[in-house]
């Protein structure tokens, strides 16, 4: 395992290397980030960088950008390039490659077919990733170290997160404590990977995005 010093060096060292790797944009019609992350978790090998992107049209859904350290899961690229019009095969291609995501197509469009108008490859998401204009990081260097309660300085040192802000209050103090809840999803903000936090009980901060937000109507 890396020690703190080494971890601190990781993001900076990793960034140029990761930036050189190809980016894949994937749009499987996931209705929300939970479904998109569920599909993401099924990929083997897992990407080293994974972002979710909110896409409005043709109807609201969540796309992903993926960066693999070495090779992508077998079948993924074929699915993306064969997409275009009739991507029933696109969503299920990773599953047919035997790499676990049997639910890929099902989670996305229900029954394996993508909703009309959606294509498996998503240049819009790739453009957002490349420009660092928008996108929410799920997998990024150091994410596995962001558990429990950490200081802002710790979060910056351990991970690729470049800044921590407090909702309605500007930059967080490096000594402030964050209850991570093991769920830390920073976003591109003006080109920097930024974790937005909110004030919480006990003088702590918590990530702005909670793992289980209140559903629109609890019993529906």
């Amino acid at each position, binding site marked *: 395992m890396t020690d703190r010093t080494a971890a601190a060096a990781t993001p900076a060292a990793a960034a140029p290397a990761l930036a050189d790797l190809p980016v894949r944009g994937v749009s499987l019609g996931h*209705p*929300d*980030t939970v479904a998109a992350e569920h599909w993401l978790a099924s990929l083997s090998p897992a990407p080293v960088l994974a972002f979710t992107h*909110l*896409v*409005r*049209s*043709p*109807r*609201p*859904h*969540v796309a992903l950008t993926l960066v693999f350290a070495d090779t992508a899961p077998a079948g993924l690229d074929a699915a993306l390039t064969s997409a275009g019009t009739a991507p029933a095969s696109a969503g299920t291609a990773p599953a047919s490659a035997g790499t676990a995501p049997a639910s890929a197509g099902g989670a996305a469009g229900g029954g394996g077919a993508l*909703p*009309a108008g959606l294509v498996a490859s998503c240049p819009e998401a790739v453009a957002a990733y490349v420009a660092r204009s928008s996108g929410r990081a799920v997998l990024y260097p150091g994410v596995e170290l962001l558990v429990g309660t950490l200081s802002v300085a710790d979060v910056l040192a351990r991970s690729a997160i470049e800044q921590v802000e407090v*909702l*309605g*209050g500007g930059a967080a103090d490096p000594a402030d404590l964050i209850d991570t809840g093991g769920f830390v999803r920073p976003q591109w903000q003006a080109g920097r990977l930024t974790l*937005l936090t*909110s*004030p*919480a*009980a*006990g003088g702590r901060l*918590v990530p*702005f*995005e*909670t793992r289980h*937000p*209140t559903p*629109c*109507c*609890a*019993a*529906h």
Partner: protein
Amino acid sequence: MGHGHHHHDHDHSHDAGGAADVPPALDLSVPDSELSPADVSRRGFLRSAGLLGAGAAASVLATPSAAAAAGLPHSHGPAGGGTAKGGFRWLAGDHHIHTQHSSDGQYRVIDQAGHGRAFGLDWVVITDHGSNAHAKIGVEKVNPDIRKTREELPDLLTFQGLEWNIPAAEHATVFVHPGRNEVGVLKQFEQTFDGSQLPATNTTEQNEAAAIAGIRFLGEQVRARKVEGALFLANHPSRRGIDSPHEIRNWRDADPTVAIGMEGAPGHQAAGIPAPNGRGGARGLYDNNPSAASYQGYPPETYRTWGGFDWMTATVGGLWDSLLAEGRAWWVTVNSDSHVNYLDQSDRGPDSDFEANGRYNDPVYTGKVNTTAGDFWPGFYGRTNVGSTSFSYRAVMDGLRAGRVWVDHGRLIKSLDARVRVAGDRRAATGTPLGGVLHVKRGTATELTLEIDLQDGPNWAQFVPVLSRVDVIVGSVTGPVAARDTFTAPDTRVVKSYEVTPGARTLSVTYRLGRLDKPFYLRLRGTDGKRTQPGLMGAEVDPAGPKLDVLGDADPWGDLWFYTNPIWVLPR
């Protein structure tokens, strides 16, 4: 422009999705003498139904003369803004209450209404969720309970409504005037326009159009005399960021006699009480983050409450002000959104089959205190105070439609009378009230007179709230926006703050608004002063605005505010 010319040339681009041409009966620039007998009759009905005049137009600039005098392009609509004068009887109410006919509710109608009446309310609206079960069964089954409640509680006005799943957007209160068609109209509306009843394959554009059609349908039911009134209020508008600015503008324009406003503060105000004695969640249950369905232009601040209020209302120079600065009449309310109440000792009825019966069985006493519920009983915390001409269903609907409304949390103040007057006029029967429009000649001096009876009795947390400060917020009226997703009003700011003298019984002030040179509006806000921070548009706009509520540590009784609806002053 001469009367009778209700068609006129101008740029209609701001009116996309807006109302069609105004029928003669609704166009007050056409005198009665030029109408057909049928149209005279129609106008008489509309006037008596409160559908002409105050608050019945999308914009206070809706008449050509009002707009021309202000030097601004006019909007379509039947008439100008409020014209009523003088004082009113203020009736407190709550337009957002669930019962056992909601899949996430549990109480009987009489449970909610009885508590609401005991806690001081004069009117309530029963708003169970639109759903398959409700559209087929619940919307009918709840009606006998409501009618019985009207008999048992004659001092309470109990409306039947529902909580509409607005296609492509959040929820909304929809309710109608009582009458023999109240169920029929609500049922047809729900089955045709509720988001739960529309094809899942609909595009966003199709759903937004269905929302507009739904609001228009309600107005048509009133004009066809099936019900005497129908109103729409957008509920918890910022909770998930999915009520875009253009949708809100479209709703208002779809039928301004129906779509009148939004919740200035959401319900669920107990949800931030710290654990273990409370839920330890987010005040208002505002703990979401942007989704793919959200309007992507909204900042993260949108998704949280500020002093218990919704970001659209709490931000001086924000979304609400952007509507008011257009001259677009749009009102704010507060409510309980009561489903399951904090510290209650009952539970949903056992052995229920909600889908089959359209309701849960009656609640049962458990003996256990529910500390994780996030709601208050109706009337326990928030009040929507409506300036009414009498104690009646009609008068409450008319007052809401006219925007004669101020709201508070925790009984922060006892009463409020705010009027804009021609300077020096102190007659009791004059003065333009909340929601109204004062038209004066350019150069005329006007002033705000504000009388607040400070609270002298305890609220339902057993303390006497102390008002600390009142802010006067003023913005220029700049006419319709070019971009319908605009959500800022750069010219709106706090122009004056009054500190309340400790121990005082009243706050009585006159604020001179100067000689009119350009159209403007004002609104008022007050606080116990316990939690403030500079506003999101900067300290020069709002030096001490509401503070972001802390997740898991938001004592609702330690952070009280009141807000009023606006008054416009326009040159004539």
